[in-house]
């Protein structure tokens, strides 16, 4: 499905189609990721949840992407245990020359809409404590809250925040 964005008219948003786009997704994400993912990790997300991978495309060339999944999560509410659907944003990347144009924000907005349609009660992600840009995006633009501090979470011993958005 193709959509024209409102923020930047040259950029289109497309759903992930198939393996032919895998290399492009991997290239985009690897540039920014602090920790390495194997191809199998990408395939896990993209084959299990293709509807939750959205690409931002400029003239047919992917320049940004968001890759997500949905989990069943056990939660305790009012002293009782229950299961709820939780979205998870695994990767968000925009090519450096296309940044500061609202593309990342648009990608996140689209995938949140989709997760809401799929009956998720909340959406979560982890982000490095030092990644102030990401935190600003999720917290200020969408209302994600910092749920937990994860000490020495990353392979580089860096700390992280677990962020969560409650629909």
């Amino acid at each position: 499905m193709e959509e024209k964005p409102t923020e930047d008219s040259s950029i289109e948003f497309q759903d992930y189609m198939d393996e032919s786009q895998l290399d492009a997704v991997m290239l985009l994400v690897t540039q920014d990721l602090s920790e390495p993912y194997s191809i199998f990790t990408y395939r896990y997300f993209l084959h299990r949840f293709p509807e939750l991978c959205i690409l931002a495309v400029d003239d047919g060339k992917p320049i940004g992407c968001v890759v997500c999944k949905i989990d069943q999560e056990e939660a305790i509410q009012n002293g009782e245990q229950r299961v709820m659907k939780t979205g998870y944003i695994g990767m968000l990347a925009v090519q450096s020359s296309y940044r500061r144009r609202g593309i990342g924000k648009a990608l996140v907005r689209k995938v949140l809409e989709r997760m809401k349609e799929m009956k998720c009660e909340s959406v979560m992600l982890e982000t490095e404590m030092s990644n102030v840009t990401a935190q600003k995006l999720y917290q200020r633009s969408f209302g994600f809250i910092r749920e937990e501090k994860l000490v020495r979470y990353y392979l580089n011993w860096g700390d992280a925040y677990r962020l969560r958005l409650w629909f």
Partner: protein
Amino acid sequence: TIWTNYQSVDDNMDELPEEAEKEMVDITAILDDGAKSLTVSNPMLCNTERFNLQDAMAALELMDPKMDCCEIPLSEVAPFGVKVDGDNDRLVFPRPSPTGLDDVVDPLPWDELTNLDAAHILIENMIRLESLLGGASVVESTYTCLYAHKPVVADMKQRLTGPASNDNGKDKQQMKGTLAQNVVYASTLILLELTDTIRSIILNADIYEEEDFTVSTYSMEVFNDRDEGSVVNTVANTLEYMVSEIDDKDTDEVDVIAQLLKYKLDLLAMSTTMARLNGKNVRQAVEKVQSMAKQSLQALEKLCPTIERLENCKPDSAKAIIRRVFDSHVNRPLVGNAPVRAIRFQTFQDSMAFFVKLTRDLDWALCRMMLKGDSLDRIRRMLFIISISESNILIQSLIVLNLYFDEKIFGQYPLPALITKCIQRQFHLPDTIFTNQYAVAFIARMAKPMYDILKVMVLNRQRQRAYIEAVMLIDWTTLIREAQLVDSALKQENPGAAPYFTLFALTISIFLMDHSVALGLELDLFCSEHEIAVAYWYRDYLLSSLITQLSTIRQLKHAHKAAEAQMAEAKSKAQRGKKKGGKHNKKIANTAALPTIEDIEDDYEFLLMNLKRGLCRGTVRFMAAVNQAGLVKDIEYGFTSKERIFEKRFEAFQVMPQPPPLTYADYQQGSDFSTVDQNELLKSASECFKASKNMVDKLQSQMKGIDSDFVSTSETDLRQLAKISVGNTIYLAKLTQMVAQSGKCSGGLDIDMESSVQFCTIKIT
């Protein structure tokens, strides 16, 4: 040498030995056929019902250099002095584990070892030990020392152990080899023994989390032909050997060798003693460990400049030896194929600073608490301060192991007795209340939850919050209900009885709720101006509830004391007719009215709580003033709302009967100062901070008359809170000026939590 092997590996890659050629099977065609069956729309080669994210992340690509072959950059294994950079820095296999001192790939330095080399190896071992205590696995810390590998230790033992002789009743090994060799051997043995002891303590306490400690040993083969006694003997013998061998003992390397070996012996002794206390020898053993800790700390602090000098003048020969005998990647193939944590080692300065803190905490956090903590309130406050100090997992584990053993707190105080004493003292109650069957049963019932209150303080700060909200609040909700039943039964027997147990349980549970919110502020979980305002508003509410409950308790105590004094006075009057005993009874009546030392500590804590409430209230009003002045943008979210966020933030409090859980509407009402004149609001906020500053001054002066071990604050904390009170007063004055000039202001806001972990300065920019 191994370096020569690395350099020639590229040249030899295409030349396989004939035997190897015969054993290999070409499966290219099979893989080709398999790949041809895949399509872009159906790329999966295998179907399985369950394949989760963890499976995906652990799966590896065959022949992947990093994940499958565990290859590392050549620059990581180049010898000292050899530079490898740019295109030359290819990936190579890590060196294999050494097979002995005369390892085929790269023999370990042995005959050429000097005392200076041995000293540097000892320092490097401390860095590896620090890494273990910092959360690295054994294979990425201790066993990066090649001397620590099993065949090498066995080899050293065989070369250095002479026949035993009996010297004045003590078994003594004849010393063989050079002093440097013996130092390396002794240092390695004690490193292995400390590794095992530390692991054992941490595993037994079972409070570690993945950020503290790596459980897996990755099947590392360990030299087990040793025990604590033999290791201690070996190190002691080496120290004696050094005394006999060295003419000039006044050199830096001799000092470092002697002091570091002695420190490791002491650390082993202190750890094993504290891990093995029994009820019969608690105080004696702990006093001994405390004394040892103080002496070790002194010696270590004195040694640090010597180590600095030695390291700064490290000759190239020693650097080359260190490079050869410590290999961070030698065990990489054991760790497996999933991406591994970066191996990291601190500098020698940071490692030594770590051990200085560790030793200080052994004395201050562990021994001092066990020797001085003799009441529930005192132990709780000491643990509160220890929790803030961020002790190492070893110290935390030793605290938990000794918190409750032989059915007593610290092996000394039965917990039901401590609880009884605490309640009795708080309300000034007679013994008779605690002989009631319901009271006795309830106090026994409270033992485990009270133990949890103490234990939760030993967990990592970021874990405490989760445990309180998921487990403890639910426990205490039940306890409050049970306490109400007990008080009801007691009232039936004695109509004048107040709800003592309910009040006690309530104060504990409200403390937990406040602690949970305070931790959220400390961990920076409240990330927007709005959320911070909400957090302080809720804290104000909780602290006000707590102060109300404590005020009731204090009033009851005062009433009981007054009644007791009245009775004693009446008795004294009656007896004043007889000369004997009259003055004595009057003295009893007067003494009953005097506050005890613990009463004074309670008063201090009560004032501290009022200070915290004042700071929270001032912050809420300051934030309201800032909103009124238009300095904060109101944000509306598309997918959530502030109400929803509030509901989720404080969801855990929904189970509590008291204080009643609040809603976002309560917050809106409680923080709505729209009908208040702007200047009045600014003035009110300023008054809160001025009053807080006065309370800080009072607390600082009162601290001089109290044992600072028994209050949940410190001189440093109080100075920080004074700074915040003053800082906020100044910025309020700035805002008042801005408002006076223009009503609605333009400018920014910076919420600064640098000065204090739980309170902030609101800077107007």
